């Protein structure tokens, strides 16, 4: 009998992937403008560090929130004792309003259908526990956020089956791709419980089109399954086309009183829009009462700290602040995005045209020695160890075409971005990889071996004992 659980000894948590290994390398040698100018620049972290000053200035003007006070009266005691999993009412109200504002008030959210969780990480896992049994499957369009492998599969026993998207059409989700994924799941004897999309997309940085949303609603309606829309990046849309939430489409199509309505669930968080990942603020929004009830109980395993709920309820209830913040944040993201795209262009590198997110989906296929994932990893290693930029290889996001990389632009200063772009340009302009000497190749090969091809399509059940498959 194993001493620990299977969950503890398998690697379904996915932390052996290159996505995380790049981080490790960065941790060992982190760039600092003054103290370590030759260090690795972190471009693998989808953080929004552009607008903290706006929040800090709000704090300056609102001492009550800081001091556990409301209208001059201390509420420290109440906050210290408050652990009701229904959450602080003022916070949920403010959150519902903020989500609505993020969608141009084209839809409204009912605070009673909101469940607070410890970050989107917990929200996604909780939804899996509510919607699927171990061995069931969810379909996800590739490429997708590497953390999903842990969040959706690890402790829940749920499987992910990819919906293959390709550069042929800008990685859009097509009807046929949906059907193929569903069939693939059937072949593997997996019961499909739903589809999960990230809108705007991570790692693509694009918003889902109305047409895609229509396909999706049609698909889940026919198959009688769920749709989860992780809208964690909804506030990072900086240019046209605008953001269309699946909730809007449901409203437009007048589907509010239908079965389908109850099978659409939204995940949200303040980690990207407001740049507050440390505060662990996640949200599940569902039109299904049973899901709301079950998820609420499950939130016991990861409630939001009451002092954080209180601070944020004050912040988000300030409509002047939220209006100004959303607008200013978008302007800054747009500028930063422009700089990255221009810098890449100068190095002869293109990216997928995008209008949202904290990163670009960069096309480096022309820099590969061969159209293989091995070549992608080779190139990635060069970029990490020689160019000293930690970016994320497409294979870590389950992309089925080698050569794409996710490069973040909002987690550093403008100066650092310039340095990064310079390094990249020098690398590209320098001797091309095909003329490198054999010894160089050897040296790079010996640096860390990873079996990437296994990683791309592996389902977690491969990690289980043969008799359990």
């Amino acid at each position, binding site marked *: 009998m194993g*001493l*620990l*659980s299977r969950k*503890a000894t398998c690697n379904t*948590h996915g*932390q052996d992937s290159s996505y995380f290994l790049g981080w490790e390398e960065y941790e060992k040698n982190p760039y600092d403008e003054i103290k370590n100018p030759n260090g690795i620049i972190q471009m693998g972290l989808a953080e929004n560090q552009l607008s*903290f000053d706006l*929040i*800090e200035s709000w*704090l*300056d003007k609102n*001492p009550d*929130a*800081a*001091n*556990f006070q*409301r209208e001059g009266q*201390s*509420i*420290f*005691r*109440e906050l*210290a*004792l*408050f*652990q*009701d*999993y229904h959450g602080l*009412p*003022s916070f949920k109200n403010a959150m519902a309003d903020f989500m609505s504002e993020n969608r141009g008030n084209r839809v409204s959210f009912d605070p009673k259908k909101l469940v607070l969780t*410890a*970050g989107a*990480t917990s929200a996604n896992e909780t939804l899996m*526990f509510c*919607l*699927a049994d*171990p061995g069931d499957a969810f379909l996800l369009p590739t490429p997708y956020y590497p953390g999903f492998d*842990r969040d959706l599969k690890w*402790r829940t026993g749920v499987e992910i089956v990819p919906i293959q998207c390709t550069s042929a059409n800008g990685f859009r989700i097509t009807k046929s791709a949906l059907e193929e994924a569903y069939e693939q799941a059937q072949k593997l004897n997996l019961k499909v419980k739903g589809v999960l999309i990230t809108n705007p997309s991570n790692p693509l940085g694009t918003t889902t089109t109305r047409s895609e949303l229509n396909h999706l609603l049609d698909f889940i309606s026919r198959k*009688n399954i*769920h749709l989860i829309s992780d809208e964690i990046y909804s506030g990072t849309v900086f240019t046209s086309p605008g953001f269309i939430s699946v909730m809007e489409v449901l409203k437009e199509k007048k589907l509010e009183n239908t*079965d389908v309505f109850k*099978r659409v669930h939204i995940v949200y968080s303040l980690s990207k829009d407001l*740049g*507050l*990942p440390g505060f*662990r603020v996640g949200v599940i929004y569902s039109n299904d009462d*049973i*899901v709301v009830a*079950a998820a609420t109980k499950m939130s*016991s*395993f*990861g*409630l*939001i*700290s*009451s*002092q*954080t709920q209180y*601070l944020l309820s004050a912040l988000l209830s300030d409509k002047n602040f939220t209006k100004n913040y959303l607008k200013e944040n978008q302007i800054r993201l747009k500028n930063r995005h422009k700089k990255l795209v221009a810098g890449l262009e100068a190095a002869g590198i293109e990216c997928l045209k995008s209008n949202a997110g904290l990163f670009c989906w960069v096309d480096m296929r022309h820099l590969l020695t061969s159209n293989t994932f091995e070549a992608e990893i080779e190139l990635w290693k060069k970029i990490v160890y020689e160019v000293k930029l930690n970016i994320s290889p497409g294979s870590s996001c389950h992309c089925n075409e080698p050569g794409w990389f996710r490069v973040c632009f909002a987690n550093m200063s403008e100066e650092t971005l310039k340095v990064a772009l310079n390094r990249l340009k020098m690398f590209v302009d320098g001797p091309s990889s095909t003329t490198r000497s054999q010894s160089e190749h050897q040296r790079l090969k010996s640096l860390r071996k990873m079996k990437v091809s296994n990683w791309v399509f592996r389902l977690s059940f491969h990690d289980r004992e043969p008799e359990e498959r």
Partner: protein
Amino acid sequence: MGSLKKNGGAILSKIATNDQHGENSEYFDGWKAYDKDPFHLSRNPHGIIQMGLAENQLCLDLIKDWIKENPKASICTPEGVHQFEDIANFQDYHGLKEFRQAIAHFMGKARGGRVTFDPERIVMSGGATGANETIMFCLADPGDVFLVPSPYYAAFDRDLRWRTGVEIIPVHCSSSNNFKLTVEAVEWAYQKAQESNKKVKGLILTNPSNPLGTMLEKDTLKNLVRFVTRKNIHLVVDEIYAATVFAGVNFVSVAEVVNDLDSYEVNVDLIHIVYSLSKDMGLPGFRVGIVYSYNDSVVSCARKMSSFGLVSSQTQLMLASMLSDDRFVENFLMESSRRLGIRHGVFTLGLKKVGITCLSSDAGLFVWMDLRHLLRDRNSFESEIELWRIIVNIVKLNVSPGSSFRCTEPGWFRVCFANMDDDTLHVALQRIQDFVSKNNNKISEKASDNNDQIIQNNNAKKQKWRQSNLRLSFRRLYEDGLSSPGIMSPHSPLLRA
């Protein structure tokens, strides 16, 4: 709509649609009654007093004062806002180093400095609730068994089992030996489980005990550690009440035992501690749970899982600062012990005056009250529930019946005393005293009367409460605000949304 309801079970998961979360239990009547009619000293002096909530409200003033005097510990004050960006951005699941160090330090101090804890083994979780679930995910597979001494914290049924699929088997303790846990009882339960072909992965216990308030003796703890080592099963000790020990008594942590025993007697890979600041410091709202394991793989696994319930970085920073303030910590621990001891003393003395005894205890935020002599039938849980309903609705105290903790003997009640001010406690005592005296009179009258009258009264009450369609069952009650829809007092400023 109709088809969705029919398909409800297939559309959603089994976990979402079963009732393994245990919250459908009828014990919520107590909470519901309290919610409808909550006591307030001036505004609602005849309302129901909440004594079912194991909260520690006695020392919040000390914490409040510290926060006022230390604005740098906040990321929102002018003195502390320069840290805002770094802290707001910080989501590393290792947690802030200063936070881990401060917690390790505090845990050591709460154990009188008799043990030290390694900050590298401190893993965060969403409260002890999250910690207990996480440790199950790390140690057991669905269908595996953990033994739990009863009576036990009702929410274990949810925390240990609901999403993990782990089974728990109680090790029953009885009043015959003051509910002491013996290694023999554990051995017996272990044997029985083995005989039914169940895979026992470990033993989990709360020490100091909830609901008993008692602590394990060092020798017992040593023998339990030796036992699990022999059987190669895990020992998880939930030490959430470690610092609620009244003045003058020493708490023996399993950490102390691990130090004391020879290496051949204890396999440290089997020893794990769950901790939290919700009881010792009275900060359940801040969601600070800790998993501490001597097993490196468990630390590593639990740490990855902590992504599902990290402590807010804002809270980490504040507590890192607070708990590294030695002067504050020492004073807090001392004062908290003192106030708890006094509170416990006042309460138990008041109960003694009317012939009510409690299990002798040295810790916790509650007493384990013996009301067996007030039962209509000492062998029936039905009479325990009857008595409970009388206490809630007539005496107007929300207390927790022993059956909700899986106690095998009717007549015991857990009554919390640290979640109210002195005046409220006195009102509660008065009500108990009045009730008992009235009851005594009634009993002496009945001695000459027919018993049927009482039974009739009881039946009438039964009827009234059965209107809420609840059948007697031994499903579990959950404490704290987690369990009730709308636990918030309508008078709380927080509700003014």
